[in-house]
């Protein structure tokens, strides 16, 4: 019985230490310990992540796909600019181009079920002063997700494909408005689109802008992805479409947080 009593005693002491740690989590002591651990492990995490990203060199086909994705993103941006120009010329509406302040952040972790095969639900970035929860994270002008937690030197980003995120968006070509909803496992849905609106396969989805008076939130004009399939049932109230992101998140090492 002695060994068993010893084990239970050690467990009780361990549990007390853990409960103390939980109580100290939100205090300066807890934050300080977390930050110190993050500071020590950050270089190792970045090395591991970058090594895994460079293990498989890009084939010619992958390079071509990257170029196509880049051109599609630029095309979508040009379509938005063309629409803005038309609106200004018609003088029916004005647009206030927002100057975006961006904070660069390195990705330190992107756990996936099967690296290189399954889609990540999010990633961890280095956090700096100025970053806040719900801040959008972008790569070039493509919306990747938003910050859902900040602790010490790290921030957690949830991708637009997770079921925790939804926002209004529209198509670049046909101006059909709907709601982008993450479905998990890399799936994104463009839902609640009126049956009378037109959806086209290959059309780009851009954000319509959901910002507060202080300028926080998701600004308009950010690219979400392109439509890959449409589900239109005349007996339903709305139609929906599946969206594919224009960037391979698993290949990214630096992203940007939009401050306003």
């Amino acid at each position, binding site marked *: 019985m002695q*060994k068993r009593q010893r*084990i239970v005693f*050690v467990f009780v002491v361990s549990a007390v230490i853990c409960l103390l740690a939980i109580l100290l989590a939100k205090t300066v002591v807890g934050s300080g*310990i977390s930050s110190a651990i993050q500071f020590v492990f950050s270089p190792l995490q970045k090395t591991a992540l970058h090594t895994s990203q460079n293990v498989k060199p890009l084939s010619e086909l992958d390079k071509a796909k990257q170029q196509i994705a880049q051109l599609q993103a630029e095309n979508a941006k040009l379509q938005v600019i063309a629409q803005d120009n038309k609106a200004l010329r018609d003088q029916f509406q004005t647009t206030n181009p927002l100057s975006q302040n961006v904070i660069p952040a390195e990705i330190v972790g992107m*756990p996936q079920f099967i690296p290189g095969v399954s889609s990540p639900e999010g990633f961890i970035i280095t956090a700096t002063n100025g970053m806040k929860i719900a801040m959008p994270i972008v790569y070039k002008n493509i919306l990747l997700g938003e910050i859902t937690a900040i602790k010490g030197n790290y921030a957690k980003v949830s991708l637009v494909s997770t079921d925790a995120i939804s926002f209004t968006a529209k198509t670049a070509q046909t101006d059909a408005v709907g709601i982008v909803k993450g479905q998990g496992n890399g799936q994104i849905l463009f839902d609640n689109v009126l049956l009378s609106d037109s959806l086209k396969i290959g059309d780009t989805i851009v954000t319509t802008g959901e910002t507060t008076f202080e300028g926080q939130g998701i600004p308009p004009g950010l690219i979400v992805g392109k439509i890959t399939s449409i589900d239109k049932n005349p007996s339903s109230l709305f139609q929906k479409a599946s969206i594919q992101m224009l960037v391979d998140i698993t290949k990214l090492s630096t992203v940007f947080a939009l401050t306003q």
Partner: protein
Amino acid sequence: MKLVILFLGLFISIIFETTLISLPLVLLWLLLLVVLTREEWVFIVAIIAGLILDSLRLSTFGLHALFFAGFCLLVFLYEQKFELQSSSFVLVMSFLGSAIYLLIFGSTNFILQVLCSSFLAIIFFLPLSFLYKNHIRSSITPEFS
């Protein structure tokens, strides 16, 4: 040398679980530590590994540590009923531990991740059990009789 391998495996699993793979690798290595060493200091290792995981995964500080300590206690409590250093025990405990872990901390493909975790536990256990062959004890120890 044997302990160095176990600690190195634990360290690598911390890096991998927070950077590349969303499987409970640290939990599996802690299970192997308990099964192969059967020493009480594994609780300290579990707490430290849990605190590191909490800091790097941005979860509540101390939560992983508490879970790992509880899991180690569970494995120790079964010491008197089962032969610890057997593949079947490792398979069952890794399955149960992974399932509870993924239920608490979230998962994307629950069944597949649990099955993969159990499979990985056996893959890690088999070569390490050969190294620890000299430390195999009988299923009923004198202290519990």
